[in-house]
């Protein structure tokens, strides 16, 4: 048997998820922190639904999947130059930027 890759960015396999679940990681946030699932370039766009189905099957229903992992900005990888000019606490000021 070869690998079933669930998370392509971080190369997390279905077997990794099974082992993590057996070790007590039974929600998505915990699975993510243990395996690295959803922590790569795509931030879970390609694996969160698959991982949710994995949990739903093992825990006995969609209601048992609970929450997705914490989503934080930025939604897409973005060059730092796009934000370098937003100083923290800076007053709204656009025309002379």
């Amino acid at each position, binding site marked *: 048997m070869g690998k079933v890759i669930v998370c392509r960015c971080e*190369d997390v396999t279905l077997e990794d998820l099974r082992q993590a679940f057996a070790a007590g990681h039974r929600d998505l946030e915990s699975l993510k922190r243990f395996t690295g699932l959803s922590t790569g370039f795509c931030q879970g766009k390609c694996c969160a639904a698959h991982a949710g189905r994995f949990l739903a099957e093992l825990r006995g229903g969609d209601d048992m999947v609970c929450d997705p992992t914490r989503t934080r*900005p*930025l939604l897409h990888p973005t060059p730092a130059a796009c934000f370098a000019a937003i100083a923290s606490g800076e007053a709204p000021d656009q025309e002379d930027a």
Partner: protein
Amino acid sequence: MSTGRRVTRKPDCPVETGSQVAIEFEGRQLPARAGEPLAAALLAAGVQVFGRSLKYHRPRGPYCLQGHCSGCLMRVDGIPNVRTCQTAVRAGMVVERQRGWPSASFDAFRALDWLSGQGIDHHSMFTSSAATNRLAARFVRRLSGFGELPAGEPRPPAPVERWQRQVVVVGGGAAGLQAARELHRRGVRSTLFERQEVAGGRLLDGSDSAGGDGQGSWARLAELHRQLEGSENLELLPGTTVVAVYPGDRLQVVAVQERRTLVVEAERLLLACGDYEQVRLFEGSDLPGVFAVRAFDRLFYLHGVIPGEPVVLCGDSPRLLRLAGDLVAAGVEVAALVSGATRPPLPAGEGAFPLVPGRLPVRASGGRWIERLEIAPAPSEPADGLFDCGCLVSEYPPAPAYELAHHAGCRVDFDSACGFRVVVDDGGRTSNAAVFAAGHCTGAMSLEQALEAGRRAATGMAESLSGGSGRED
């Protein structure tokens, strides 16, 4: 088995053919068409391995062609980690692959994959002493790194503009465009951010028919654009990616363009940000040459590129049969249409390709690109069929793009039929009174349903703005 080539597109294709240009790919000159996605040009020129995966150095290639996955990243004109599927071809651009030793095509570290069976549990590796751990960390970082730093001077900071708008719509697909049209009809001004250079989403892909009146999706899109053209109520900004929503007294939406960043204070937000393409999971489903169905639609219908032959299609919907028929008509070799349903949706097109009912793909194999596909009655059963396969089109429910709603604190739930999705009522209201959502970010639906959801959410939003309770009970 053959690598990528170009075929003739349908005469009414809305994407213009760019002029013939050359790009430089790792020292070689490759032909391309100006303006087409770089990833499509590379596939058409026969490039198969776009990169290597982080841990096992498995070959990687694009599968979503929507700017979401990490399969198509390359170094372009000295900038690392560029999504080649979202980068338009320009004459003379310099393109290199990033990971793999001695090269991405042949990577010696792939041996890790062959030797590691079903995976390496790295949690307790090299942890015997702090010194070993530090050494191993340095080695692993080099092995898996994300390319080299950009060449040349760092990019100067983009100017930031702060805007105030009453209504911001995120996403210019079927639901978003229809919502904008409804808001326009009701005299509500809106600002629509669309990530791609051309709005349209599913309406643009070419394979979905907008149903009912027999009107094709391209014709439907052209009609929507006509209705919105010159509207004083709509500020349509393509090429604008919304990357964050901050909840508060007034919502703040952060949108990024090529040359400026917008921080927009909005009274109402309508999320129509669609979904992410997925493929069915099985052994080897991450091989290059396995494409999500909409990714393949875009390659074939919009850009006239076939990444490999023979093509195997896996899925149950009638649109897949239509796609198979269109492929055969374009002279593309189709090996089979494999359907999990025991009774397939429609009879096969004049026996041009075998239709295999009651089977699922269970194993894809090949060195750097898919070469063979095994099928079985169920994932747990032994394979009972094998196809030579130069390209697999895998239909699987896309995952709703729920994240921006989650940023705004809206309720999200899980549905095995699609994934995490934004919870809405009939009027598109989310659990945050200022945020509405419509279309595929709220779950699986047809194109027709997405159009209707966009209209209803816009109606609900317009009512909430006119001072009523917003609810029609």
